[in-house]
């Protein structure tokens, strides 16, 4: 009953936090693999990104069930769930991007910009992890969220140029063009969803003050 809650001294909560931390770390790893895979044009490494997404899915389901088994106040649970779902969406996007990459021949004129975006995606994921850890400590999140916004803005700027450069490329087959377009779209949307995730962290932080 309630006595269990008092005597467990937050054991359930700490376990849950460990799982969410693991999920975000996995995201950073996946982004790192992705960047290296584009840099070195390594399809098998890109495949690994998709495998990581599957592992992340399992973790997500475990997290959700732990939340509703009684970790944290009911008041916090919907926001925590939302955050975890958003992180999972990032994985899905990353997997789509990887899938598209494997299906196309990336034009060389776009490669360096794509690598730049992939690098920034990795950085923004690391920042999300830092923000999550700060939230747990109850620290002010403003600076970290601003850092995430800065990264997102940078990626947005590169996206603008990427699309402009992509338009100069001659497309002979509709599907080649379609897959390239989807690849670029997914690649540059990852940071938007991460920014979303950071907003959810701010909500959780404020609701417990």
């Amino acid at each position, binding site marked *: *009953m*309630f006595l269990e*809650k*008092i005597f467990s*001294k*937050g054991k359930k*909560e*700490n376990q849950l*936090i460990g799982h969410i931390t693991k999920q975000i770390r996995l995201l950073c790893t996946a982004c790192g693999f992705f960047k290296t895979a584009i840099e070195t044009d390594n399809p098998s490494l890109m495949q690994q990104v998709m495998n990581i997404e599957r592992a992340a899915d399992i973790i997500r389901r475990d997290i959700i069930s732990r939340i509703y088994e009684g970790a*944290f*106040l*009911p*008041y*916090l649970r919907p926001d925590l769930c939302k955050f975890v779902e958003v992180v999972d969406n990032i994985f899905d996007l990353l997997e789509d991007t990887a899938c598209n990459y494997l299906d196309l021949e990336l034009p060389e004129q776009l490669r360096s910009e794509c690598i730049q975006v992939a690098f920034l995606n990795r950085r923004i994921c690391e920042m999300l992890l830092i923000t999550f850890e700060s*939230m*747990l*400590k*109850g*620290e002010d999140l403003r600076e970290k969220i601003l850092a995430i916004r800065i990264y997102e803005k940078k990626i947005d700027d590169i996206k603008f140029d990427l699309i402009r450069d992509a338009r100069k490329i001659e497309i002979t087959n509709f599907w080649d063009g379609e897959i390239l377009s989807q690849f670029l779209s997914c690649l540059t949307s990852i940071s938007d969803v991460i920014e979303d995730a950071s907003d959810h962290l701010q909500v*959780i932080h404020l*609701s*417990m*003050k």
Partner: protein
Amino acid sequence: MWKIISGIFLGWSLGANDSANIFGTGVTTGIVKYRTAILLTAIFVLIGSIIEGPKCMRIVGDLSRLVPIEAFLCALAAAITMTILTYFAIPASTSQAIIGAIIGAGILSGSTDFSKLIKIVACWILTPIGGIIFGYLLYHGLKFIFDKTIQSLTYRNTIYTVGILVAGCYGAYSLGANNVANVTGIYVGSGLLSCQMAAFIGGLSIASGTLTYGKKVMITVGKGIAPLDPFTALVTVLAGALTLHLFTQIGVPVSSSQAVVGAVVGVGIVGGLRTVNPKMLVKIAVGWLMTPFAAGLMTILFIYFISCFNELVKSPI
């Protein structure tokens, strides 16, 4: 001894209605389960009644000189008044009902001590004010302390969970200590029961009301005054409990619902006075006026009928 039945009925209805005030916010924010809330309330109400219940009994007993049958009728009138007003969803306070009934009986017998009545009415008015003050002060005070000392998410989570449970138990204790006088204090005044016995029986009747009917009322009432977050829930419960306990020390039984309403308003003031609903205040004021008058009137009618009946029985046809 059968005369204490009306008091037991009154206690049962008090337990059923007022336990929602204590744990209502904790239950509707999901921090405490209904079963846990009801069980804890029943236990701590009984403890509060036994330990500090006698403190408020004196003023109830001293208000009017009553004979046992009058005590029975007062409690009955109060209980019926409460039932009717609750049915019409007018906020009714047991304290006001029983006091109104006692005054009614006292008017008939001419034994009312009006100086005590003034003290009681003053405390009624001060109850929501006390709630407001405690609510406001606790909100700022606890917020300051928590922000300085408890920053980690999991630690705060634990503090809120444990805090609401502890505050709720304290609230139940205060309810028992303060309100048991409403239920059985009248029998001490008329000599039917000793203070301790009255406290014990009264406490049991309130606890039984909580256990049997408390859940239903908790669902409806709790949702109406549910604050938005765990911290506010904790503060309102604690402020209500402190207010009740304060008036217990003063020796006057007051309304627990008004204490909690005051606490909610006090916390609401923190966010600006927009959160105070004028319609709700009007409804409360109406309840304040109607309850004692209705109970008093009913008591007068009962006593009158009984005395007429007695006359009829005495004089052979």
